[in-house]
């Protein structure tokens, strides 16, 4: 009986401790968010120039290799979306890394979250595989691991070497702007978007330079400069998701 009582007290203590840890983590998270707003921290953005894109799909293949993605999943999709003059126009679609991401809102376990640099990251150890985020994403940027990916990756080594762990069966996965490359590059003093090793694999792999990457909060970055000089658009802006992937339209004047 007395043992019981102690264990009950212990249980309550554990509960209180758990609650304070949760509360503490919330406070820390809020403080972090404030910090980034105040210091105007880095926000990574991608610019895709549709006047240059030839639809070669190198970006998709490099992405599959560097992120060790099974052949039936694509974090990046290239779709033909019409013609301008005699040339086909393509719309490549990575994850939009939305500023207001529906997937982050709906996840019941906070497996999707915003990094301070704006990237919407996935915690594959936390995801329960309910697939609500897949349904909520307006861009179809999320894929579920219906099967275990246990064979060799056909894109390796031709298109690069895997840099992150393979995802288990039963979780949702998506494009991460290759933040493993960004984080490693920054630690080595490199500049993402300038130094290839610190830049997303799809940007590096593009043979025609249709993709640019950089910090949109830095007015001197290549993405900021290009966006200042040319008209750009984003996908489904009407939804208010505020994507961080910008497109430069293919227009008649820009054809070579």
């Amino acid at each position, binding site marked *: 009986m007395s043992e019981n009582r102690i264990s009950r007290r212990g249980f309550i203590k554990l509960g209180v401790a758990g609650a304070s840890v949760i509360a503490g983590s919330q406070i820390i998270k809020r403080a972090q968010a404030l910090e980034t707003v105040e210091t105007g921290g880095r926000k990574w953005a991608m610019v895709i120039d549709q006047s240059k894109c030839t639809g070669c799909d190198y970006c998709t293949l490099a992405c599959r290799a560097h992120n060790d993605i099974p052949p039936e999943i694509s974090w990046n999709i290239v779709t033909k979306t019409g013609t301008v003059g005699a040339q086909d126009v393509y719309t490549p679609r990575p994850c939009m890394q939305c500023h207001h991401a529906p997937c982050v809102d709906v996840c019941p376990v906070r497996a999707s979250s915003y990094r301070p640099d704006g990237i919407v990251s996935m915690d594959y150890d936390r995801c329960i595989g*309910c697939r609500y985020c897949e349904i909520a994403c307006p861009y179809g940027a999320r894929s579920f691991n219906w099967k275990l990916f246990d064979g060799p990756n056909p894109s390796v080594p031709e298109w690069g070497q895997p840099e992150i762990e393979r995802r288990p069966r039963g979780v949702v996965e998506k494009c991460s702007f290759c933040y493993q490359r960004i984080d490693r590059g920054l630690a080595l003093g490199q500049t993402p978007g300038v130094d290839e090793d610190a830049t997303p694999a799809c940007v590096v792999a593009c043979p025609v330079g249709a993709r640019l990457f950089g910090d949109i909060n830095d007015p001197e970055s290549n993405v900021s400069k290009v966006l200042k000089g040319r008209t750009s658009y984003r996908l489904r802006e009407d939804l208010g998701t505020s994507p961080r992937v910008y497109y430069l339209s293919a227009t008649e004047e820009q054809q070579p």
Partner: protein
Amino acid sequence: MITKIRKISPWMAWFSGLAVVTAAGASAGVMVFWKGLSLTNLTDMVPWGLWITIDLSSIAMSAGAFSLCAVVYLLGLKRYEAVARTATFIGLLGYTIAVLTLLLDIGRPDRFWHAMVYWNKHSLLWEVTMCVTFYLVVLALEAMPIFANFSWLRNHWPKLSAKLSRVHHYAPYLAIAGLGLSMLHQSSLGALYGVLKARPLWYRPDISVLFIISAVAGGMALTVLASMLSVRATKHANVDNNILDRVSFIIGWVMVAYLYFRFWDALSMTYTYEPGRTEGLHLLTGGPLMFNFWIGEVLLGAVIPIILLLNKRTRALPLWRMLALALVVGGVVAYRWDTNMSGLLIILSYLPGEPSVTYTAYRPSLIEFLSGAGIIGYGLLAFSLGVRYLKVVDHNLEIAHVEESKAVKAIPATGD
């Protein structure tokens, strides 16, 4: 002696039939856990299908518990107490069905507890998970006096049995908790769809209202239907026909409210073209879901049962009343299926230019059907056992509410 062994009683036949279905479903479930969700016909386009419909429907069918418990313990209409008891037992089974189906449906069932630890207060699915968990506890407490009725328990563990039945003194408090939790998550299950801006057909506030109203009707209908069927199938059940008649009358009016809101909900969407939304509505009114919508949801699911339940003469005839209640249950399930499918079968393009719409298809795989049937079989099996051994359908049962009214006021004194 020999003839006695050869003769199979209807009870044994029913019991073994259900046991076979449940066992087949359990083996299908094991296959899913072992081989993964690639055994289903679900895709990245249609990630939710048959199982989510079973899940939503079983929760809806459990709504009789909170509504009837509120009627009895909060409105004080004690004459419905025996029906509320049946509804509570059905509710307990319904929520366990929902939890089992969810375990099948999520990719990582080993992480089912993550929502308890990693809170996302913005997520309706998180809120639903928490409410379902807490409500399952409430239902288990509410059902304790029912389990106290098990004669084996009463004979072998009289003290435990007495303790369990004493939980009944807290029934009003449990009814408040149940009402609060159910009001939250029954409607949130609809809002789960309603908050998604990416799916124009779903993106409206009405689904949450429709979900809770249809759940109240469906839950009470299943309770009355199950009671009427039990009394016809076994001598272990007793019902007061007047009470069931009154509840059926109430169900008829709840269905009128449901049909009214459903009518405005659907009709308001016919004005102005909205990409994705208009196509979704056409799926329902003229596409592959047309039969489900017009016949399953509207005609058989609402109009006919409303007439049968509100007309005194047809309601008095057991066969017509049972038919009407079965139709209500079917209509509520059809509404869940249609809601899920009409939003998912439409794929709205994200590409530049005017949003274009493409269609996809979904048909559950054999393994989805089998495991789904197994889980429902478990529910029927458990209910049948409840009728036989726990007397869950027994309107003659003394529920001791004479002394209870005093006991409620003296709660601090009851814990000895």
